[in-house]
């Protein structure tokens, strides 16, 4: 460890001094030139670029049915997706085929889901599915839940149909993998909400666009994980099978796929969770369902109603997660059942259960009472009242604490920092950021940074972008503080890890929308609320990455350091943190991306700046162009921050490598 220290003292002060110098120059420039050339733009003002984008929107609208690209490509895609979506909706959520109700009523849906979960997973998750979906109905949100369910199902079907074969292909072929990986990387670093606007430009608003947006977001996990599962087959097992004379098809079918099965099911789980999350957010482009309820209630600050819908989303997420997890366990365990007896009992029970489900299906097709969810028992209203009560109480009694905290952070941290970024002349900040990128990263990073910043200037939203940047950076600092504290704690103690990790996992299965609800309740709509929601959304990822990094530090090194007489604090600061530098940089990278992807959602609750521009663009036709430009600016910020943190991570790696050799 002394070598690390030596290298640090040898290299860092130099670099640190330069960075400090740059920051000092910036402060001086800021004091002298404050308020000049800030490129600020009023909320309703637009630039010529925005107008041009509006015109493009109009032009696309006018030529949608004549332009060959649309006629033979985009419209066809939309048509296919629309038909699939309509079909699934007709099954469970929308009146169809001349009936006043969907083909399958609530009883049929609940029975089928329960039965399916039992068959694929176990009895416990079957009951969970029944209870969960019944609960949604009891909240008075059956219709909305089914809309969300239908969209999710459609998107998942298409995602798997495309994703699994593609993933397997990428697993088998290096060439395909080389092509697919960077595309997936890009799709996953892109903040989730920004492609909604361009999608509406091409596919109009509505369910079809929602499904396509969801597809883009939800397919990457299953592709990646399926490819990984296939690639993970031990080389020697492959060789052994080959040495016995397998054909390539036999190798895939009998060796690779069975061994990757469990991993692929985990990929399906990830895809379902991502799809649910995105379908909720697609309320922004007029997708029906629970997301729309949350959105509407947030706008009218009706926390109770938002909570109802949010709770339904969480319940649905939990059901999906548990069922697919149980299914992946069954894949693993079914082959293990060495005794024949329980298997046959289960088979008979499943047959009987299946018959029961079919009966329920028939009832729900035929009788109104089984088709429309009964309204006699309403759980929604009491929950709503209770939450509203709690919120009111909180606002009355805790507001001293919460608003003090909010004011403190807003006035003494957020505002000064934001002003520093937004009120500096744009060219000064431009130069400062590029210089920092050059010093902290490399010339290449500096080039990318310069390019991104120039394009942001081009979008006409420099002021808003810097405001968003300030919020993002602050939120990321908070995320990293949380990440380091909890990550180190978890990484050092398996016991703590066992307690905290499930909470983080649960938090990650929750659609990002839902995070806003309690924060709006606590802090009302404000910039601070948006940032806080972003922090809470991003923290679990950062914490987990750091915890894994700390836990991965070689036990031998730890033993050596302990036997040399290091204190706990010395172990952390001199061994574990330096040895996890790269992981920490990676956590920062992921934290930034996650925070940034919450910017748009934050815009819904007063987050302002780019997030507000995007949301406004969905609402008002005149601001469409500006919203699109704001989305672009978010992507540019994302690319810039991603490259910057990655090159810092690489540098961290290089430093440790240098020490090791």
């Amino acid at each position, binding site marked *: 460890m002394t070598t690390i220290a030596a290298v640090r003292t040898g290299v860092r002060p130099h670099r640190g001094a330069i960075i400090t110098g740059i920051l000092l120059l910036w402060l001086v420039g800021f004091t002298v030139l404050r308020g000049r050339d800030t490129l600020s733009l009023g909320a309703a003002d637009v630039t010529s670029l925005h107008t041009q984008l509006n015109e493009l929107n109009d032009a696309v609208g006018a030529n949608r049915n004549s332009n060959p690209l649309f006629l033979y490509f985009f419209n066809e895609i939309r048509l296919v997706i629309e038909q699939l979506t309509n079909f699934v909706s007709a099954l469970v959520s929308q009146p169809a085929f001349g009936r006043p109700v969907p083909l399958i009523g609530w009883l049929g849906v609940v029975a089928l889901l329960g039965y399916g979960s039992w068959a694929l997973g176990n009895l416990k998750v079957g009951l969970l599915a029944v209870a969960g979906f019944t609960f949604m109905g009891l909240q008075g949100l059956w219709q909305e839940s089914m809309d969300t369910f239908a969209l999710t199902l459609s998107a998942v079907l298409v995602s798997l149909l495309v994703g699994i074969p593609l993933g397997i292909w990428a697993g088998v072929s290096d060439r395909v993998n080389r092509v697919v990986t960077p595309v997936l990387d890009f799709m996953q670093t892109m903040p989730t909400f920004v492609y909604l606007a361009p999608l509406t430009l091409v596919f109009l608003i509505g369910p079809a666009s929602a499904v396509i947006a969801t597809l883009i977001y939800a397919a990457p996990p299953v592709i990646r994980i399926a490819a990984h599962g296939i690639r993970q087959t031990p080389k*020697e*097992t*492959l*060789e*052994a099978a080959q*040495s016995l004379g397998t*054909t390539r098809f036999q190798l895939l079918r009998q060796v690779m796929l*069975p*061994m990757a099965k469990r991993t692929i099911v985990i990929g399906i789980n990830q895809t379902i969770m991502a799809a649910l999350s995105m379908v909720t957010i697609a309320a922004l482009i007029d997708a029906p369902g629970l997301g729309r309820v949350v959105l509407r209630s947030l706008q009218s600050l009706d926390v109770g109603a938002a909570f109802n819908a949010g709770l339904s989303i969480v319940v649905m997420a939990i059901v999906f997660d548990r069922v697919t997890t149980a299914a992946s366990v069954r894949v693993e365990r079914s082959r293990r059942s*060495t005794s024949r007896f329980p298997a046959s009992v289960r088979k008979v029970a499943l047959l009987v259960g299946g018959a029961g489900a079919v009966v329920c299906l028939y009832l729900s097709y035929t009788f109104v009472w089984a088709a429309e969810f009964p309204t006699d028992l309403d759980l929604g209203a009491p929950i709503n009242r209770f939450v509203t009560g709690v919120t009111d109480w909180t606002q009355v009694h805790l507001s001293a604490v919460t608003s003090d905290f909010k004011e403190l952070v807003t006035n003494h941290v957020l505002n000064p920092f934001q002003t520093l970024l937004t009120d500096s002349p744009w060219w000064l900040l431009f130069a400062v950021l590029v210089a920092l990128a050059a010093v902290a990263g490399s010339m290449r990073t500096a080039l990318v940074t310069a390019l991104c910043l120039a394009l942001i200037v081009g979008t006409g939203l420099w002021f808003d972008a810097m405001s968003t940047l300030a919020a993002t950076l602050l939120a990321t600092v908070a995320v990293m503080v949380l990440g380091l504290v909890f990550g180190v704690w978890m990484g050092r103690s398996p016991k703590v890890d066992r307690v905290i990790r499930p909470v983080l996992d649960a938090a990650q299965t929750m659609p990002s929308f839902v995070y806003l609800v309690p924060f709006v309740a606590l802090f009302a709509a404000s910039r601070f609320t948006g940032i806080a929601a972003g922090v809470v959304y991003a923290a679990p990822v950062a914490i987990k990455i750091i915890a894994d990094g700390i836990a991965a530090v070689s036990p031998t090194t730890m033993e050596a350091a302990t036997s040399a007489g290091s204190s706990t604090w010395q172990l952390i600061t001199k061994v574990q943190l330096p040895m996890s530098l790269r992981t920490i940089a990676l956590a920062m990278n992921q934290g930034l991306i996650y925070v940034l992807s919450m910017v748009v959602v934050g815009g819904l609750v007063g987050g302002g700046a780019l997030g507000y521009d995007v949301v406004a663009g969905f609402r008002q036709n005149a601001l469409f162009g500006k919203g699109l430009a704001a989305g672009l600016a978010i992507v540019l910020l994302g690319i810039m921050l991603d490259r910057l943190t990655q090159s810092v991570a690489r540098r961290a790696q290089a430093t440790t490598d240098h020490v090791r050799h």
Partner: protein
Amino acid sequence: MSIPSQFTQQQLGQESAGETTMTTTTRNELLETPTAPTRESGRSTDPVISVQNLWKVFGAKAADVPSSPELRALSRRDLKERTGCVAAVCDLSFDVAPGEVFVVMGLSGSGKSTLVRCLTRLIEPTAGQVLFKGDDILQANERSLREVRRHSIAMVFQHFGLLPHRRVADNVSYGLEIRGAGKKERAQRAADVIDLVGLSGYENSFPDQLSGGMQQRVGLARALAGDPEVLLFDEPFSALDPLIRRDMQNEVIRLHHEVGKTMVFITHDLSEALKLGDRILIMRDGRLVQVGTGADLVGAPADDYVRDFVREVPRSHVLTLRWIMRPVQPDDVLDGPELGPEVVVRDAVRVVLEAERPIKVVEGGQLLGVVGDAEILSVVAGS
């Protein structure tokens, strides 16, 4: 080498799977039967596998290396510096006789694992020939290569390479399954082979429920199930702990007696090589250093590398009387006991020391030489 069947049967009767304790001693005693063919006669039959000038070079433009007289001559390090290519196997040639246990020995990085994979083209060789019963495997199309792998040459791997999602029986019969054998035939054959390797009772276990040694028995059974002519072993026992390793070595010896397959055995362990191998090929940096019987290596090392290798080997355990006998002198009294030339020194010590006269080394009724106390003691005491 093949063993007369009556001995094989006898051997079988005495030993059960778990507790085989056959050693080189017993094997060499078996060799002393008049019907045992000598190594010379083994060599004279047509080889099962004949490797000719085999090359495997990794790297861009690897194909240029074997065809360039200049590059061929370079050492591995120089080649790496000049072209960036790594030559794993360089210009290797050897023959494997039917029924022979042919051991390839070398340290890690010597290219031995690459070599064994080249034999069935799990790794595609860069140049040369691998003749299996006269046909060049390297020229075979995908289909006939698959036929060779399915029916003629099977392999046992260091880390077993079992399919974790299949039971032992299904792992064993996997090779039969992919070549289209019926369910009944597969089950029957699997049961037979599982019995042969001493795994009866574990048919329905999954690989991860077995110990390492038992997993390797599954690997062995899988290779045997297709009744191949040749078995390839890639350091099959290196991942096992020493006691299990010894058991498994004995198991291979037993199986060799029982089924008489030709075996190519890769190892980095000299004592394993000496214990199992009829002949041993020593590889270093991809090249052949020496090939011969254990006694050849110990008695006449080709260079300092081999000499260094065999330094720790007790010579009396490896050298045979052929190596230490001296020509008959006129004053020798030739009425002592007779022994064959392939008797290992260690086993002859008692006879020689107890005899009053030098013992006669006789092969096929012909007197080859004599061995007296002095010769024996020079091997046993000095080295």
